[in-house]
């Protein structure tokens, strides 16, 4: 056995090295974000050094209709795709969990494909289908494309939640006279709701930041924010793009913080209830 003092010191050193390392990784991840926020308040339009504080770019932003429209399009595409993908994906996950049937492994294989193949391949493949089927390129085609790559992520996330699901609860409800639809909405869905929620959040996250697949599915009738920014980057970004990004960041930061606090409180309440023997 080593002397406890030596072991304790080694532990302490290990802990501080871990902290410093994690800190450096976060620095790497957050430096660009700090730059975005800082330069959105910069008086100079050249993003090199911080020259002075201004809110001018936020005012400019309200006049930049092209950028705001791209942002609105992004919300439409991501919102719609998330809703469709969550509905189709959740049903599929439950159906595949409940029933064993021929062709199940084929559906599984088709679901794995968009997850593992490079996005660019899916992008060009979808573009080809849209052109054969004469589907006009625009918001509609982008919703189809985004939903396609979001469905598998919803299925896998919901399935992970179903893995711990007790089928006898459903059977009990059916024995007591509930029909299938009632069981689905009254029992199954509420139990797996956290899984559905995290699947939907994952789908929305992937969709809102997608650039590769959108790049191929986009058309004259509408473009999304990532594509608009990509377009502007070639000409040089004005700080009003930074201002919009800073606003989006603030909203998501508050949203994530809020949902985490709610989740944490919920977990604490559950633990307390368990201690008291209520559950």
């Amino acid at each position, binding site marked *: 056995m080593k002397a406890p003092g030596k072991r304790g010191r080694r532990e302490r050193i290990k802990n501080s090295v871990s902290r410093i390392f994690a800190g450096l990784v976060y620095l790497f991840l957050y*430096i660009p974000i700090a730059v975005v926020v800082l330069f959105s308040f910069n008086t100079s339009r050249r993003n090199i050094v911080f020259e002075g504080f201004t809110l001018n770019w936020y005012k400019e932003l309200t006049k930049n209709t092209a950028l705001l429209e791209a942002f609105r399009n992004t919300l439409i595409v991501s919102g719609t795709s998330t809703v469709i993908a969550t509905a189709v994906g959740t049903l599929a996950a439950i159906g595949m969990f409940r029933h064993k049937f021929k062709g199940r492994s084929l559906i599984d294989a088709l679901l794995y494909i968009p997850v593992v193949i490079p996005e*660019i391949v899916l992008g060009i493949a979808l573009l080809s289908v849209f052109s054969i089927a004469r589907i006009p390129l625009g918001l509609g085609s982008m919703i189809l494309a985004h939903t396609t790559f979001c469905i598998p992520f919803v299925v896998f*996330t919901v399935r992970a939640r179903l893995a711990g699901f007790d089928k006898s609860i459903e059977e009990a409800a059916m024995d007591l006279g509930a029909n299938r639809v009632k069981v689905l909405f009254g029992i199954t869905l509420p139990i797996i709701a956290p899984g559905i929620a995290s699947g939907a959040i994952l789908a929305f996250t992937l969709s809102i930041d997608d650039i590769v697949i959108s790049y191929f599915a986009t058309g004259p009738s509408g473009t999304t924010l990532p594509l608009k920014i990509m377009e502007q980057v070639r000409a040089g970004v004005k700080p009003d793009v930074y201002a919009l990004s800073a606003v989006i960041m603030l909203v*998501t930061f508050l949203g994530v913080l809020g949902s985490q606090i709610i989740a944490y409180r919920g977990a604490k309440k559950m633990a307390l209830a368990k201690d008291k023997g209520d559950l």
Partner: protein
Amino acid sequence: MKRAKKKELISLLAMVSPVSFWMALLIALPLIYILGISFCGTDEAHNIVLSPTLRNYARIFDPAIAGIYLNSLSVAGLATIFAILIGYPFAAIMANAKPFSKTLMYVALMLPFWTNCVIRLYAWRTILGSNGTLNFILLKLGLISKPLEIMFTRGAVVLGMVYTLLPFMVMPISTVLEKLDRGLLEASSDLGARPATTFLRVTLPLSAPGVFAGVIMVFIPALGFFFVSDLMGGGTSQLIGNLVERQFKESFNWPFGAALSVLLIAATLILVRLYTASGGQLDDLGAM
């Protein structure tokens, strides 16, 4: 009894047919079409002509194309290695953290990804460009006499890839490390193994599936992320992704672009096959 069976079938169809139709029409059909046209040629007007040929595949041995392939493989390889070197220790720290700090670390890791990645990469340009913040500071301090050329190099593309893909390396590794049986580590240490030996002989082999999953999630996208090479490399470092993109958006040689894509799919399938053969779970690739 028969009625129950029928009801069972209806419930199955109601739940599984939407996903089946969707995946058949928008995954299977497009990929079969891509495979098909990869064996076709084009006429002067860029129309696809049905004349079975292997020419599109043979073009890969064209030195210019092969050069892009090698560059793309080395960029993706370097990005994967750096992602492991940064991501593994980070995942270990996260897996060993107390529940509250673990949640905090996870949220802080994912939060930047809610901001558009193009804008975050563009911010790197502001920092690293030849009149960027970093060079400005170093010049002011007198540490360098002329600006460092960091942007628009292969190194910058690798940095952009690591930056964009790091969480996809961290998540699968930390999931595996969390499930690791602590008893095994204690046993190894009680039997006299030094921490380094325990790590190399116990922890590392047991976490290999997580690393493998991370490699797939980083290496494969890194071959295709043409926008990272556009933003960070400015055209100096062409990737397979740029080559494919150009066939579809500029030179309109869809069959050649399709052949390049088929090769990317083949590479992916080989990696995934190796992953499942080594005991990896496919679902772990999709769930974050």
